């Protein structure tokens, strides 16, 4: 398993945890907010919980307050990097 969370993995988690289907390319191209994508705060909390279970490490507390996928990935990936 890579130690970086990719847009592909985030897209997969958005579908699994929040029922929102979005193509990874779309996440790369456009930094639409979670609200516009249809991911609510409980959905984002579910994504954070799933990542914590997968990586066996806590995510930063601010992760669940991220406004957009890009902000979220920057935050969790820098935490994974420093945590490693």
């Amino acid at each position, binding site marked *: 398993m890579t130690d970086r969370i990719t847009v592909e993995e985030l897209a997969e988690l958005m*579908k699994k*945890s*929040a*029922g*929102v*289907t979005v193509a990874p390319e779309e996440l790369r191209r456009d930094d639409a907010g979670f609200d516009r994508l*249809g*991911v609510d705060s*409980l*959905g984002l*909390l*579910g994504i954070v*919980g799933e990542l*914590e*279970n997968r990586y066996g490490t806590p995510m930063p507390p601010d992760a669940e307050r991220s406004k957009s996928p890009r902000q979220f990935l920057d935050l969790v990936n820098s935490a994974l990097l420093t945590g490693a």
Partner: protein
Amino acid sequence: MSEPLPRRAAVTGIGVIAPNGASTETFWKATREGISVLDRVDREGCEDLPLRVAGQVRDFDPSAAIEERFLVQTDRFTHFAMAAADFALDDAQLGRPDTDAAPYSVGVVTAAGSGGGEFGQRELQQLWGKGSRYVGPYQSIAWFYAASTGQISIRRGFKGPCSVVAADEAGGLDALAHAARAVRRGTDVIVAGATEAPIAPYSVVCQLGYDELSTVDEPSRAYRPFTSAACGFVPAEGGAMLVVEADATARARGARVQAYLAGHAATFTGASRWEESREGLAQAVRQALEEAECAPEEIDVVFADALGVPAADRAEALAIADALGAHGTRVPVTAPKTGIGRGYCAAPLMDAAAAVLAMEHGVIPPTPNVFDICHDLDLVTGRARPAEVRTALVLSRGLMGSNSALVLRHGATDAS
């Protein structure tokens, strides 16, 4: 200065998802024809439980009706509620642009007996099987009996008064009464109703403690109220949502008024104290008639609670006689729920929907599987009975002791 006219609560839309039909049209067709769809319980995990027969909704595809992001965060009972609300709003010709133009004028009221048992069971299995970190956050809202009110309002963008009635099975009728009050107080539209999804392993196990539950394994014999063979009730899933709207608002936009919520009352006589329910139910009927300014003789049909427990059936037959006098033995009484099962809070909603449709079509649907009545009632059995139905009385009782009565008037009646 003249007094403003009271705002009458009209029914302008109906949406039903029932064991005998996953649309209002199919529900009514099967109900009118008296088709029984009671069947062996074959839901996964329920096959070996002592409950043998239920009314299961078989032809409803949630993913075709509801967006995925709402599906993942809700239980089956909320899937029914969201889909039935869509049907009701379509029937009322209230589209998204209409409600978006005045979001504070539209609210939601639902009732539910048990909430999201299937969703809750899945997450609790995660909790005890893998640990608390594996419980999804939507558990916090999905199994809550209030979930449907919240999800309907969020999904449709409604910002008007929203509430949930927790009042036993009879709470289904109380939700309609609450909607009528909200309309009289000034809200233009309330989407009101009840849906249930109790055919899942955890939920079924919870019901096994009810003495009134029928565990007979022959579908045509499992639920036969008002007969000497009465052996309890068969549970059902599904439900109905209605659009309850201010009469003046409905008429101003050219909507078809299908019925009026004319009167309602509720009483409480204690859990499983069926003999006492006679007095409580009769009192609810009297007060509902009084609110509707309706004489007993004006009632054209009674949709009975029909629990299927001898003491409860006797109490209901006597309550009808107590409240309606001599008319009580002459008025046609029906219980279409014997063909689909008893859907807890959703049961009186499906009856209310059938009552409105009976008025519209001039026919009283029959009581499937029931013959040889042992009470002094004119129960409509066998086939539907043509009748001019201008006023209907819907009765409901809960296992925990609530009794409710609702008087519906036909939409064509002039303002009184």
